[in-house]
């Protein structure tokens, strides 16, 4: 069934996009069997199946959250299978092996190429380890978890809001300095 919005799984996609963990859990559990079968039939183990499945599920969920699958014309499960299929082919190629079976008509589904982001990201990721785990936790609490300074002070054991804020700014100063050097090298 194709809805007027364009995707047969529009409701599911929107539920996952809105952070509905129950919907995501059902989607996860419903589709693992097919990927397990694919991987086991093609030189892989249970662990390989879980790894590749979680990687491609991650990719699909991030694409959903980024709104890139709002107009998906195939079933979401078919799309997921295709992403997993190509990911497993890549891993087999890296090991010098080839796919034995697993093709089916559903694989005609086009897969959106994963946007790996800015080319300097791996270097940035590497240098950011220099700010230390405590700074990373603090920045994560502020920028990702969106906690207030009062909550951060309480959670991370700072004397008060001002101490937490001051430390957060110092951490970002350091991270920005490191990031700027990476960008300079990238642009030079």
């Amino acid at each position, binding site marked *: 069934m194709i809805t007027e919005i364009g995707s047969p799984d529009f409701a599911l996609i929107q539920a996952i996009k809105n952070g509905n963990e129950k919907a995501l*859990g059902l989607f*996860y559990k419903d589709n693992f069997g097919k990927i397990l079968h694919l991987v086991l039939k093609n030189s892989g183990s249970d662990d390989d199946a879980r790894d590749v499945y979680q990687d491609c599920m991650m990719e699909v969920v991030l694409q959903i959250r980024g709104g890139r699958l709002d107009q998906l014309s195939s079933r979401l499960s078919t799309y997921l299978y295709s992403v997993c299929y190509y990911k497993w082919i890549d891993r087999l190629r890296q090991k010098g092996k080839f796919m034995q079976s697993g093709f089916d008509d559903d694989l005609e589904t086009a897969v959106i190429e994963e946007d790996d982001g800015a080319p300097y990201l791996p270097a940035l990721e590497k240098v950011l380890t220099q700010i230390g785990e405590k700074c*990373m936790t603090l920045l994560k609490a502020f*920028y990702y978890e969106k906690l207030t300074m009062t909550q951060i002070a309480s959670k991370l054991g700072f004397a008060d809001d001002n101490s937490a804020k001051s430390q957060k700014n110092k951490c970002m*100063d350091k991270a920005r300095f490191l*990031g700027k050097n990476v960008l300079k090298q990238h642009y030079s």
Partner: protein
Amino acid sequence: MENEDPTERIDRYLDETLTPAEKAAFESEMAADADFRLEVEAQEAVRNLISNQAEKEDLRQLFATFHSEMEAAPARKDAEQDNEDLLKRKNGIQRKLNWGNWSYTAIAASVAILIIGVWTVWNNINQTDNGLTGNQEIRVDERNEVFRVPLLSWKTVDFKPVLQDKQTIDATIIRSKAYRSHYRFNDILEIYSDKLTEKQQKISIAYDVDTRQYRLHIGKSSYAIRKTDEIMPLPLP
């Protein structure tokens, strides 16, 4: 704000919370100063990277939870299926036992008539064997032939046994010359014993969901048993 921390000022620009005047001044500064522009870009990249890493970490944890739930589910399904099967068999057995009770009553009546007849004719003959003969079996219990024993399903969680399900199944103790320490376990548990009675020893069955094995507990003794339609010797405790 002149004394505002540079980090907070850039954050306010990225979060679009600067006033129009502040924003205009900020963008003029960026246009005039390449180094400052790079600082803003670097801070935005750091923020995005931290958020992306955290989002992926959260998803990984979520997937791990889903996977654990999925792996735990088949064990639960197996136990549920086993319990359903037991229930179906039990209902079947109950019907069978009802028929059986009629049969036993009829047999008992026939035996009583026979005994009275024999006693009448052979009044002065002493009975030398008042026990059992041949393959004759007598099902014993103080009041009923069949009683119920607990069937407990266990699963090991964090190295501790956790009760998953509690049921009861029909059981009977059988006196037989041919079988003295045997069992048969399918829809019903039959224990062949010379002396065991229901009241004398506590009887129960434990089912290990992980290994899918049954253990019969009689008093302090425990025997590994399995579902079987044949009469099997009770293994050593």
